[in-house]
């Protein structure tokens, strides 16, 4: 088992300013954030790829991991909802082709394959370290709505539970957790736990410059970070 500290130190030693997704997810997991089950395989190891997919069970998502690619979707490094072996092999080929076309200099180190998660409302939960205000966390609508609706609010650490609830209530995403026609559909507690966990990462690991969990998908019980990005101090 590699500890979060070791993951961060190894990345810094390599001169990387960002963790790879599986590393970021290890850090998230270490503070209790739920992430989809995943496996990491070498870029040309088809046997390991198929074995891992078998182990996780279809449908799966596959993502190419490269220190040179920060925005995976834009680079064409992600394929979702793969239902069988044949599609998986094709998907990996297609990802490789797209990357070599769009980002010819990008070196793919691994393929990450993970269990597809059921649909649900998507949030952004993040964090950053500001020169003026110190560590702060962010909360708002996630997925494709993050940039279009600009719903995020910030909170400067340390934050009480009540102040985190204030943050949620300030946003439109907060409406997910309100009673609607007499029914409360989604539980706020798991979201508060993720916010607390992100705060803990920022507080415990001074090397972290930014954290971006987006989307965090919210279910009737529990929330899972489907993507995780952690930037380190240069």
């Amino acid at each position, binding site marked *: 088992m590699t500890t979060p500290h070791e993951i961060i130190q190894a990345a810094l030693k390599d001169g990387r*300013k*960002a963790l790879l997704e599986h590393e970021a997810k290890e850090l998230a997991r270490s503070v209790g954030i739920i992430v989809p089950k995943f496996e990491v395989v070498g870029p040309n190891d088809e046997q390991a790829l198929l074995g891992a997919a078998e182990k996780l069970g279809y449908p799966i998502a596959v993502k190419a991991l490269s220190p040179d690619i*920060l925005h995976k979707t834009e680079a064409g490094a992600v394929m979702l909802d793969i239902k069988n072996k044949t599609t998986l092999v094709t998907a990996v080929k297609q990802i490789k082709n797209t990357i070599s076309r769009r980002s010819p200099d990008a070196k793919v180190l691994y393929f990450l394959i993970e269990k597809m998660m059921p649909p649900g409302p998507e949030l*952004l939960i*993040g*964090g*950053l370290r*500001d020169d*003026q*205000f*110190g560590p*702060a966390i*962010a909360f*708002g609508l996630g997925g494709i709505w*993050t*940039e279009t609706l*600009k719903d*995020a*609010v*910030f*909170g*400067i650490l340390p*934050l009480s539970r*009540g*102040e985190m609830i*204030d*943050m949620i209530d*300030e946003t439109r995403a907060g409406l997910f957790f309100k009673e609607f026609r007499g029914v409360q559909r989604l539980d706020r507690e798991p979201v508060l736990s993720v916010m607390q966990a992100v705060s803990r990462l920022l507080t415990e690991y001074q090397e972290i410059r*930014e*954290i*971006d969990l*987006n989307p965090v998908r919210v279910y009737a019980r529990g929330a899972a970070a489907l993507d995780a*990005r952690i*930037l380190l101090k240069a």
Partner: protein
Amino acid sequence: MPGILDEFFYPSTVALIGATDKQTKPGRAILENLAHFNGAVYPVNPKHGTLLGHRCYASIAEVPAEIDLAIVALPATLVEHELDALRAKGVRRLIIISSGFSEAGVAGAGMQGRIAGKIKEYGMRLIGPNALGVYNTDNGLDSFFVSRERVSRPVAGRLSIISQSGAITVILMEALARDGIGLAKAVNYGNRLDVDDADCLDYFADDPRTGAVAMYMESVADGKRFLHAAKNITVKKPLVVWKAGKFETGAAAVASHTATLAGRYGLYQAAIRQSGAVEAYGFDHLVDTAKAVAIMNYPCMGSRLLIVTNGGGMAVAAADQAGMEGFTLPHAPESVREKLGQAFPTYFVLNNPIDITGSGKDEDYYTALKEALPHYDAAIVIVLMGATSVTESVTELIARACHEAKKPVACCILQGLGYTREAMNVLLKLGIPVYPSPERAVRALSALRKIACRNVKK
């Protein structure tokens, strides 16, 4: 450290370095304004023997008194040298009005750096440079280099101003004067070389004359200190903050969503929210909100809003804004409506809004508010003074009903010109904030509600 700013606001003796009779120079306007100060004023300028009836001294060394506060209105290049003379004189508090420092490029920044070093070494405290300084209605101290002929000063009152911008300070002063909002103190710290936003918040938190604070800022000197000081003051009195310069794009590489969304503004909003202050979203909103928090003494403890009007359209506009601000407009309880039904003619509309129509009289406002307001958290009262059935006395009756119910009321009585101007002033004197439009009145109550919500949580 208590009292850092006390000597800035309450000096016994003030020296004005760079006093002059030249109309175009700041030293002239300041000297004129210091005529209102109830302490001793010592103009300093080697070129004059007397100035506007004052004896003028050739240097600070010649001033025959200890100086509590020096106001420096010299060209920037002369300031550094003057500090040595001020130190020799034992002056420990100074306001540097002069501009031409860090705001004016590299050379200016260099001079500012050297001044910073001297201030520290000499154990002085400084407001400025590039600042208006202080204004105190308590003792008439006024270091602003804008003449009273050109820019009116507000009457004495409970609101204090902290502003990073001199221009905004001046315009705020005039807006307060125009709207009849009383001022306690104002400070503009300009380039903020020493005294900063957090120092000012700390001082006003403990200043017994200050009942509420309106703040304009573009940046903070130290985010953590600001948050701490703002949290501290909001426990004692309301703070309204307008953060301008919202959409600066940082030079930092934008690698993640979180950073893209932040700018700095998101963090300022967080600091304002977490401190328990209310955010104002622009100049008019700052003035309107400051008016409400400085004048109205009753907290808005909930969302149930009553509207009383003698004009339908204005009430509809108020109701729309109330909806946007999260207020609800429930009808008064049946017992109240029955009572009002007996007291009023049948054509008064006893819903919410309660519309006493163009023939409603002064006493009808009082009756409606007396019976209904106790069942609500706040009220908007709209009076179209053009209706011949209402008189000036309506203002006193509205205020009486408000103070009896101890619930916040905001009034809307047209634009405050001519006839309505006097009614506006009476209402303000009686502790009722009054606005020229229903939307602005509702927004002001909304700010009071936000403050009350945050105070309950504390």
